[in-house]
C-alpha cells in the first residue's frame, strides 16, 4: 500500500481539530469540588456525633481488623488529643522508628513513651518464650502478663511488639477488645476463688455482693481503682471460701462482710 498521507491522517487531524473546540474534561480542582460518590471509601474522615464530639475513641479495633496493617493511632496517652493516622505505623505514628525497627529485634528508645513507667520486662520475655512468640496466642500472652504484673503495662506491650514482630496497634487492639484486661494498675485487687469447694461455701454470693459494692464484676474492668478477679487456682491449705486482697487471703467472709470490705476499699464509708 502506498504511503501517501491521505484520508486516514486527514480524518484523524479533523477529529483533533474538532476536539480542540469542544468543552474540556478537566476539573479545576480547588475551585471545583469533584463529584465523589457517596459510597466512596477513599475519603478518610472521622465522624462527629450530633453534639460535635468525635466518635472515635481510638479503640484500635480498626487497626486490628485491617488486612494490610495500615492503620495506627495515637490518643490521649501519647498526644493529649485524639489523632488517628491512616498509614503504616512506620510512616505516620509516633511509633515510627520503633515500628520500622521492630522487625530487626532491636530495642528502640521512644521519647513519646518515656513517661510510662519502665518495668522489668524479663517476665514478658519468659511468657513469650512459653508461647513460642506466636501472634495467634496473643490473648493468652496478654492474660499471662496481666497475671504477672496485675495489669498490662504499656512497656510490656511494646516489648511484645518488638520481640514478636506484631504491630503495636494489633496487640493494643486485641487488648482493648477484652474487658477483663486492664491497663491501669488497680489500687487493690480482690480475687475470689471459684473452685468447687469454695462455690459450695458460697463464693458466688460473696463475689456478687463484693461486685455490687465495688460497682464491677468478675471479668469486667476495675471500678474505683479496685479490680475484681477470679483466682486461677485454690491456694493449697487455705479455707473456703477463699478471697484474697492483693494476694493475701482474707479471713472468712460473709456476703455482708464482703460488701463492707468492698465499700472500704472503694473509699466509701462503712455502712
Amino acid at each position, binding site marked *: *500500500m502506498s*504511503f*501517501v*498521507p*491521505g*484520508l*486516514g*491522517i486527514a*480524518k*484523524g487531524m479533523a*477529529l*483533533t481539530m474538532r476536539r480542540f473546540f469542544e468543552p474540556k*474534561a478537566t476539573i479545576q480542582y480547588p475551585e471545583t469540588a469533584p*463529584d*465523589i*460518590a*457517596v*459510597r*466512596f*471509601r*477513599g475519603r478518610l474522615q472521622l465522624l462527629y456525633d450530633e453534639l460535635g464530639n468525635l466518635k472515635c475513641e481510638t479503640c484500635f479495633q480498626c487497626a486490628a481488623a485491617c*488486612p*494490610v496493617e495500615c492503620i495506627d493511632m495515637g490518643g490521649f496517652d501519647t498526644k493529649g488529643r485524639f489523632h488517628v493516622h491512616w498509614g503504616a505505623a512506620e510512616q505516620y505514628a509516633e511509633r515510627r522508628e520503633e515500628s520500622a525497627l521492630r522487625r530487626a*529485634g532491636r530495642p528502640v528508645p521512644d521519647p513519646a513513651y518515656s513517661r510510662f513507667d519502665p518495668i522489668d520486662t524479663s517476665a514478658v520475655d519468659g511468657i513469650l518464650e512459653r508461647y513460642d512468640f506466636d501472634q495467634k496466642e496473643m490473648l493468652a500472652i496478654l492474660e499471662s502478663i496481666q497475671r504477672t504484673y496485675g495489669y498490662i503495662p504499656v512497656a510490656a506491650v511494646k516489648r511484645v511488639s518488638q520481640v514478636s514482630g506484631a504491630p503495636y496497634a494489633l496487640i493494643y487492639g486485641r487488648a482493648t477488645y477484652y474487658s477483663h484486661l486492664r491497663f491501669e494498675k488497680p489500687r487493690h485487687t480482690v480475687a475470689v476463688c471459684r473452685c468447687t469447694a469454695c462455690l459450695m461455701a458460697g463464693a458466688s454470693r460473696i463475689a456478687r455482693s463484693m461486685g455490687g459494692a465495688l460497682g464491677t464484676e468478675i471479668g469486667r474492668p476495675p471500678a474505683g481503682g479496685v479490680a475484681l478477679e477470679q483466682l486461677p487456682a485454690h491456694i493449697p491449705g487455705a479455707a473456703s471460701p477463699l478471697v484474697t486482697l492483693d494476694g493475701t487471703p482474707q479471713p472468712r467472709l460473709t456476703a455482708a462482710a464482703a460488701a463492707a470490705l468492698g465499700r472500704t476499699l472503694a473509699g466509701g464509708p462503712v455502712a
Partner: protein
Amino acid sequence: MPAPQRPPRPHKARPAASAASASAAAPASKGAKRTRRPAERQPSLDDPRIMLDRQISSDLYEPIPPYPTRTEREAEFYTLGDGEMFLNVGPHHPATHGVLRLVLKLSGEQIVDVDPVLGYLHRGVEKICENSDYYHVIDQVDPLEYLSSLFQEWPAVLSFEKLMDVQVPRRAEYIRVLSGELLRISSHTLYMGFLALDLGGLTPILYGFIERDEIVEMLAALTGARMLFNYFRIGGVNGDLNHEFMSRLGDWMSRAARQTEANAGLLNENEIFVRRMRGVGTLDRAAALSYGVTGGNLRASGVPFDVRRAHPYSVYPELEFNVPTRQEGDSLARYLIRVDEIRESLKIIDQCLHNMPDGPVMAKLPRLLRPRPGRAWGAVEGPRGMLGVYAISDGSDQPFRFRIHDPSFVNLETVTALLPGHLLADTMAVVASLDPVMGGIDK
C-alpha cells in the same frame, strides 16, 4: 537477636602496596585527566580492605560454592557475534508497560535476540495469600493486574465458591458480569491509548483516560473505590446497585458507542499507525497454541477460544455475544480484536441491564470460613486472557496454596519468538500489542 560476633579479619600490612594504591587512587598531579577510566577505579588486589574469596573460605567459613554455571541459553545469548551489540531496554523505561527489562541483542537496528528479565515487581502475593483469611485474599489479589482489578478477584472467588459449595444468587452474578464488562471496556480503551503512546501519538491515551475516568467513577459509586475495588465476595458481591451508579451508567451508555468509535477511528485508518503495525510480530496459530497464549492474542491468530464460551461460568451461557476472531496474527489484528471486543462488551452490558433479576446480592455464609479440604480451579476471561486460580484448602481458615495463572505472563513469553528479525522500533509495537501488565506477570 544480637548479630553473631565475627572474628576479626586477617589484616596483612603491606606498606609498599598501600602507598602504591594510595597514589594510584588519588590523581597524581594537577594535570591528570578528570575522567577516571573504570580500570583505575577498581582497588588493587593488595588493598587490605579487600578480602579475597580464598581467604574467606579457607579461614572463616565453608567454601563458597562456585557461581552457578550458565545455562545454554544464557551462554548462547550473551556471546556477541560480529557487529552485534547489547541494548538494555531497562526496567526504567517510558514504554515497557511497567518494570520490564528486555535485553536486546542488536545488529545495527535489527533485533537478533531478546532476553526478557522479569521479577522487578514481585510482591509475593501468593505467599501472602497463604497467610491471610479467605476474605483477605480478595483484597490481596486486587493489585495483580491493577487496570482490571475485578477480573483478579473473580477467579479467586470462583474457586473458593467451589470449595465451599456456595450458590451465588443470580442478581449477584449479573452484577458481576456487568461490572466486569465495564472494566473490560475501560481496560481495552487504555490498551489502545498505551499502544498509541508507545508509537508516538500523544492524544489517544488522553481520550482513553477520559473514558476510563467515567467508568471508574461509576464503579466507585458502586463499589466504593476507583481502582482496587475489593468488591466481589465469596457468595456474591458487596453491595447492591444504587441510584448513583445507574444514573452514571445511563449517562455514559448514551455516549459510549459514538465516543469509542471516534477514538478508535483516530487510529484505525491512520496510515502511519497501520504501517507500523501491519505484519509486525506475526504469531501464527501453531506457535500461539504451543506457547499457551490466551485471550485477544490467541483470537487474533485464528483460534476462537474464549473462556466464556469454552468453559462457561457465571451467567454467560444466557448472554448473546460473538467471539471476534482474526486470522492474520500480527499486531494490527491484535489491536483490532480489542476494538471489536469493546463493541461486544457494550452489547453484553445492554443485555445485563435488560435482564437484571431481583433478589439478594450475597449468599448467606458463616462469619469464619473454613472450607472442606480440597482443590478447586476457577478461570475467567480477563481482558488479557484466561485468568485462573488454583486453590488448595486444608480445612483451616487460610488457603494452603493459592496459585495464580496470569495471562500476561504467558503472553509475554512470546516476545522471544516475535521480536527477532524486526527493528528496534517494533519492540514497542509488539510488546504494547500483547498488552502485558507487569503487576500480573510478576505477581
